[in-house]
């Protein structure tokens, strides 16, 4: 099948690759923020393991092509996949109006962008109207295919989905989209069909639920701090209840990420403006905002507000391991809080440092180090904000040597408090007051 994909984010490129991989002819129109030259060099605006190589393969066999001429991409697709960023609704509106006039009918548009609930219907209406006004056959259908891709695992998420949640308001177009996605629906029947609005809202509700689990667990962790219990033991107890499960209950210094955080914010806004007296989602977000400052606050309390002139090593800036994205990451909040108190930061992150430098520019109180131990030189404390694999088992004696204060504030609970104590470290985790131990 011939497919046109609009966008250059994670969802757009994974969709484009996966569809080309199973034999479709795919044309991609990148969004205006992405440079074609960089795409051609496969310098992607995000880091997804294995994606660049896979794209290269499909580009070289010609089933996947970048395209800048709207006229070509509009007439190419038998299915059009709209996968823009969540804040690009206006761009999407303008785009589908032009598409409506240029493409030949029937036009089948699959909206994968996380736009507000009702947007897919709204886009269909716009296209219908655009064609009707010109006296053209208004045979247009828009379906909603919410994206459930997790950064770092997006390829598998697309090719081996747990379910394919598809929103459609009529039967037309459905057959064509089912055919397009058939190769990814092989293990067992994964179709979940509902209306476009329901599909869009499901996406929001799932993210809302996950965020609620995280914030709930973080609140429990803060209570654990005060009640002298170790939240890590509690987490195992809670997760063992099959009604709750082990996912999304790791306490830590807050969740970030572009799509997840912003979806939850969007949901909170929708809920606030449409429903009276709903406070849960804003509480979830507020808890998370507080949580992002947690490491700073623990350090502030430990140092009794005397922070001026101190130097802190920060391990991890990405919002999660395996990505270079720093959107809404706790590290951003931490950096600003530390700087505001006159603290110098020595940062190490295996992937995200360039993004941090890009965001904040050169500053005297930020030193990006190319090695985690280099970051520890002259540091009065070590903060861990991202649980990169290489942080899990570091050379503790070298840490102790480089940082005589032996103070570690761990935002991801990756170390064992009693072992840290035996090494003579002052170790402060999230919700681990039993591990709140002072050196010597």
């Amino acid at each position, binding site marked *: 099948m011939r497919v046109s994909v609009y966008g250059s984010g994670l969802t757009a490129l994974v969709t484009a690759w996966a569809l080309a991989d199973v034999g479709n002819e795919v044309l991609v129109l990148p969004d205006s923020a992405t440079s074609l030259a960089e795409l051609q060099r496969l310098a992607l605006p995000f880091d997804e393991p294995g994606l660049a190589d896979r794209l290269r393969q499909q580009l070289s066999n010609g089933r996947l092509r970048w395209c800048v001429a709207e006229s070509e991409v509009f007439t190419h697709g038998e299915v059009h996949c709209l996968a823009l960023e969540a804040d690009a609704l206006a761009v999407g509106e303008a785009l589908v109006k032009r598409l409506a006039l240029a493409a030949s009918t029937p036009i089948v548009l699959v909206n994968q962008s996380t736009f507000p609930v009702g947007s897919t219907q709204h886009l269909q209406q716009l296209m219908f109207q655009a064609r009707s006004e010109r006296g053209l056959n208004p045979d247009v259908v828009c379906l909603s295919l919410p994206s459930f891709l997790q950064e770092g695992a997006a390829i598998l998420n697309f090719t081996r989905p747990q379910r394919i949640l598809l929103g459609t308001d009529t039967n037309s177009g459905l057959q064509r989209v089912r055919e397009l996605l058939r190769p990814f629906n092989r293990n067992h029947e994964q179709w979940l069909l509902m209306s476009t609005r329901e599909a869009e809202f499901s996406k929001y509700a799932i993210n809302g639920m996950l965020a609620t689990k995280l914030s709930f667990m973080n609140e429990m962790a803060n209570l654990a701090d005060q009640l002298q219990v170790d939240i890590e033991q509690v987490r195992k107890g809670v997760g063992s209840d099959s009604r709750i499960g082990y996912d999304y209950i790791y306490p830590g210094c807050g969740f970030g990420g572009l799509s997840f955080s912003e979806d939850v914010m969007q949901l909170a806004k929708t809920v606030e403006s449409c429903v009276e007296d709903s406070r849960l989602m804003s509480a979830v977000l507020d808890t998370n905002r*507080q949580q992002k*400052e947690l490491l*700073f*606050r623990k350090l*502030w309390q430990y140092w*009794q*507000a005397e922070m001026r002139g101190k130097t802190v090593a920060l391990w991890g800036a990405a919002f999660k391991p395996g990505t270079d994205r720093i959107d809404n990451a706790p590290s951003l909040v931490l950096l*600003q809080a530390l700087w*505001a*108190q006159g603290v110098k930061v020595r940062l190490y992150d295996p992937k995200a440092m360039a993004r941090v430098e890009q965001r904040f520019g050169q500053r005297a109180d930020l030193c990006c180090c190319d090695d985690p131990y280099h970051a520890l030189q002259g540091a009065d404390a070590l903060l861990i904000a991202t649980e990169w694999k290489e942080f899990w088992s570091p050379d503790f004696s070298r840490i102790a040597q480089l940082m005589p204060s032996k103070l570690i504030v761990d935002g991801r609970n990756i170390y064992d408090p009693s072992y840290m104590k035996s090494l003579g470290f002052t170790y402060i985790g999230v919700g681990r007051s039993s591990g709140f131990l002072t050196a010597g």
Partner: protein
Amino acid sequence: MSVRQSPAWKAIEQHAATVMEKSTLSQLFTQQTDRFECFSVQADGLLLDISKQRINAQTLELLVSLAEQQRLDHWIEAQFSGEPINSSEGRAALHTVLRAPLESRAAVDGVEVAAGVHQSLDKMEGLVERIHQQQWRGYSGKPISDVVNIGVGGSDLGPLMACHALEEFRLDAAQQLQLHFVSSIDGSQLSELLKHLNQETTLFILSSKSFSTIDTLANADTAKRWLAEKITNPQVLLQQHFIGCSASPEKMSQWGIAEANQLLFWDWVGGRYSVWSVIGLPIALLLGMTGFRQFLAGAHAMDLHFRSAPLASNMPALLALLGVWNHNFLGTRGHAVLPYDGRLKYIPNYLTQLEMESNGKSVNRDAEAVDYDTCPIIWGEVGPNAQHAVVHVLRQGTQPLSCDFIAPVLRYRGNTAAGTRDPLQQQQQLTLANCLAQSRVLMLGDQALTAQEQAKLTRKDQHYPGNQASTTLLMESLTPFSLGQLVALYEHKVFVQAVIWEINPFDQWGVELGKQIAHQTSAAIQDRDYQFGESSTDGLLAFIRGVADQKVNPQAELNTGQQEGEI
């Protein structure tokens, strides 16, 4: 020689007796159809209409001569250049420098002061930005969400008045910031407030020029004790939870305010003129420094007008001279300030303090008793509400009184709740209509009605003579700038009147006396045997001691209904 014996004063007395006392406002308007053109002034977006005053062209000329005779121009220059015009305390009164650009020149004892003023503002800007960026943190590391201004008199009323007036100009970065004002020595405001605030996120501003005002220090000590319930490290408590605004860095340090948290002003700024200084910190927290600087710029614009406009079209001078005319020559017994805008709710209180604390004096600059009236009683209320209360005495009472109507013309242009913009704009129209209607009724009485309507008023008690003089001040809209203009306008009015009355408006010995006696009396309440030898206070003390004794008796406590609970 008292000003009362001076030629200019005598001439006005004679003019009042022979010409003006006999003419009513309605006659004056019949005789002269272009009164508004002759007796109104416009400048910098303000309109001052004095045509509803009981004056004619000659009155104005004579009043201007009085100001000239009193060498007003000399005094204005003396004030602006920093001469020690506060004679009893040997100090300058340079609040005008607080709102002047950096390059302005004024020296106190030969030292230029503008640079210091701007340094102080810059330091304040640093603190304001840290709070707005949510990087000013309480002891537990959480950002500050509530700021409590503890101050009294000028250290309270100015910021309170301005913050109330300018709420709609709240900066985005200040959306989550709650501002509270605590002033009264009895702790009424503080006790309620502290029940709802959280120690982690509360910051106190201690504002006191002398930093020895008992009202403020008593509240501050209570606040400190409240914080200490949660904060064990006294240094963190002081450093993260108190900012001081004062002219006395020594006293601030003594109390424990960290040097970095000390904001300074100077003894040449009177407390009631200090809203332009770091005392305005709550205003800056609300508006941001840009907004606060607009407020200063408005006042500076009024300063320029005051210094340069000829007396006959000089707004502060006219307000002052009309006050003297009404009060000293036409025998009015009081002066009401009626803002027709709820945002200006605290303007009457503010002006009450400004005018009465400044000019409520009975001796002249040479400490001799004066033989004429000085500051009248000033009172007021939001106009439309006052119409249901104090305005009755203006309309139907026995005493001649004067009043100022103040109103912005445009309001509710934006930032209104959904669906309310049109009805609110209609309410604004209604408010303006009421403002104009009241001044018209005060002026004309029944004659404001048509002949037909008048004929219906058959009962004697329904008759209302009018002839109450008023001034109307309109501004295009209420903004930080125009509020600055308004307050500076009245400051200069007070100054001009002080020059006419030959008094020093910048000292306040009465307050000091009260402070001393209160201190003594506080000791007397505790000391059971202390007697003043004056039966009234001794009698009151005996009653207080008696009631207090009963209350400390636990049996008495039980009898009031408190029972031991069962678990």
